């Protein structure tokens, strides 16, 4: 059954391609929208129809909800899939779609609003009996009051700026006698950095793991969870590697975390796909962090271990279909790992790298899935996200999945920008990672790359570069030389052609 006749994808890059593939499989015509620089982008060519948004920056193009709704109506689309980022978690956009008679593929605006601010989400979750990190919800007026609350919840604690975020404006206090001075200092800093001195505090979760639960709900009150994803490998609070299942979550913990996520979803009337992010401490206690009201970048690992196509189900439940399976039908099989191939220099603190993609060679073979939009000639600009592709592998168990990922990374070649591939190659053989001993600081703590290349790799690269120079730079010709004689003939040809060979 076709959920919709035509659907507009309000996004670009790999996620637009992912959604369009799902559309085609379900017999749904897909509509692309594009900014000025994206006129020839892969997502435009993958769609059935494409319309310009104009503009260059995200704000001028993919964030123009008004234009997108207008295009959807004009071309006769019934639904809009927002992907992730851009307008995906914007309740006003979801409302605007509904007002225009379009189906927004995602949760209802009311659920997005309830989850939108950390404080309101925390309040709703506490009321629903979802465990949250012990601490305050409201700003604390004085340092003395902070000291009193800290004594109640226990040390170490984290002081956080109400207007901060992503680790900014945070201070760790280990002992009660440090608290008052630290509070005043942090509050002054927050006033200087964010123009708002208000602070709140939480118990510090030491060496936390970031583990999240995938949820899926229909419009008939059914919500199931599809197991967890381990996302502790991060730099600057952004994920680099995700896997499912987590090496430390057993069936019992999975059931408990999943039950909490389902309760959280039901508390706000959540439908469609969503993710409940949690912190898991070293003793196995877990705490609600936030709900991501969208399809996540890392959804493929869940698809590979559950066999459930999340994009298909997003469209089906958005069209009003009930889920045709129950919680007890969900089984995890094998192990999946995703590496985010970012245009970033892992040797230079993951600084974004821009340029033209000169050549690409992607891995293939057993257990490999690539969700990407990498191709020769692609311009990687600073305008949009630096995610080039997601390399996802599946194997029977975790050790085999890591070996398979290492193999796939060796096959991956991207020329033109720096990528995170060398980091991933290192990680797949990094003993604590292999042992499953993870926390969110693993990258900051353990990744100290040296500029020195492995001698054997340097030698191979040097030989290739010298040969390329020798054969004449800039020449583009396919030569398959099966014998010395043939290679020799080819060299004499090159010489006759005036190329620089001895």
């Amino acid at each position: 059954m076709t959920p919709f006749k035509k659907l507009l994808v309000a996004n670009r890059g790999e996620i637009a391609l992912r959604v369009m593939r799902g559309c085609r499989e379900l017999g749904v015509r897909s509509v692309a929208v594009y900014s000025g620089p994206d006129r020839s982008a892969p997502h435009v060519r993958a769609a059935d129809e494409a319309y310009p948004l104009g503009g260059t920056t995200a704000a001028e193009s993919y964030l123009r909800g008004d234009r997108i709704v207008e295009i959807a109506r004009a071309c006769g689309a019934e639904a809009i899939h927002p992907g992730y980022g851009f307008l995906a978690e914007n309740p006003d956009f979801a409302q605007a779609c509904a007002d225009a008679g379009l189906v927004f593929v995602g949760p209802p605006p009311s659920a997005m609003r309830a989850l939108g601010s950390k404080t309101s989400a925390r309040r709703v979750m506490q009321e629903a009996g979802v465990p949250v990190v012990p601490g305050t919800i409201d700003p604390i007026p004085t340092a003395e009051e902070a000291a009193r609350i800290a004594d109640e919840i226990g040390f170490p604690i984290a002081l956080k700026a109400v207007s901060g975020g992503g680790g900014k404006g945070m201070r760790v206090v280990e002992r009660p006698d440090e608290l008052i001075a630290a509070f005043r200092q942090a509050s002054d800093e927050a006033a200087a950095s964010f123009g708002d001195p208000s602070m709140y505090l939480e118990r510090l979760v030491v060496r936390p793991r970031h583990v999240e639960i995938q949820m899926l709900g229909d419009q008939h009150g059914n919500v199931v969870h599809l197991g967890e994803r381990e996302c502790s490998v991060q730099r600057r609070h952004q994920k680099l590697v995700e896997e499912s299942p987590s090496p430390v979550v057993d069936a019992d913990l999975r059931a408990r975390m999943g039950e909490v996520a389902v309760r959280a979803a039901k508390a706000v009337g959540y439908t469609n796909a969503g993710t409940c992010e949690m912190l898991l401490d070293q003793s196995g206690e877990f705490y609600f962090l936030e709900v991501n009201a969208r399809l996540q970048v890392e959804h493929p690992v869940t698809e590979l271990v559950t066999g459930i196509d999340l994009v298909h189900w997003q469209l089906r439940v958005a069209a009003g279909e009930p889920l045709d399976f129950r919680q007890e039908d969900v089984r995890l099989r094998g192990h999946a790992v995703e590496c985010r191939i970012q245009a970033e220099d892992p040797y230079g603190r993951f600084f974004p790298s821009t340029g033209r993609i000169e050549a690409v060679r992607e891995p293939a073979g057993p257990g490999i899935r690539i969700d990407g939009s990498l191709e020769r000639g692609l311009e990687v600009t600073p305008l949009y996200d630096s995610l080039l592709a997601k390399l996802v592998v599946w194997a029977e168990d975790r050790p085999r999945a890591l070996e398979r990922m290492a193999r796939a990374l060796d096959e991956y070649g991207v020329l033109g920008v720096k990528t995170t591939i060398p980091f991933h190659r290192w990680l797949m053989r990094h003993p604590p990672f292999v042992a499953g001993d993870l926390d969110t600081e693993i990258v900051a703590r353990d990744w100290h790359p040296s500029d020195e290349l492995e001698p054997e790799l340097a030698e191979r690269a040097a030989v290739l570069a010298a040969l390329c120079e020798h054969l004449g730079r800039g020449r583009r010709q396919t030569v398959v030389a099966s014998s010395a004689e043939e290679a020799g003939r080819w060299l004499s040809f090159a010489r006759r052609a005036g190329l620089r060979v001895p």
Partner: protein
Amino acid sequence: MAGSNGASRPLAATTYRVEIGGQVLTVELAEREDGLYVRVGDGDPRRVEVAAQREDGELSLLVGGAVVRGLVGPREGGTAVVVDGQAVDVVVMDERAARLASAAAGGRPQNRETAIRAPMPGLVVTVPVEVGQGVAKGTTLVVLSAMKMQNELTAPADATVKEVLVSAGQTVDQNQVLVRLE
């Protein structure tokens, strides 16, 4: 099997100086009666054949029977090579060009000044250094917000801050000089 050292006299040989990841390797390519031979540093010469040089950038060689496969392409001021998923910047010069370059560099005083440029357009978040300050390799010089992230530009080597050309809150273009070190 790689060897046949001195099996035939080289008809012609070229030595390349290859700068790669902070090291310099010499790669000698010699054409003999029975084909092309490669020698890295003091190693043994090995027969090298081109298995494929493809339009998509792939260069695959058979070096003494071993497959050496990579992507090779141009980059500003040199060559980029990808081997085992790892991209490496390489500068290749033949002996004559290397000699000329070193003679040219020897002829005038070394310019030790380094300009720290914005690798992309962005917003300067902070500049935690000041003029005259000594900085160790890896010290953060400028924090630039671009591509949804805060990016730290760091000192490539121990140096002294000679000039600070931007301040917090300023929008900068790609390649704009932010800080000068010496």
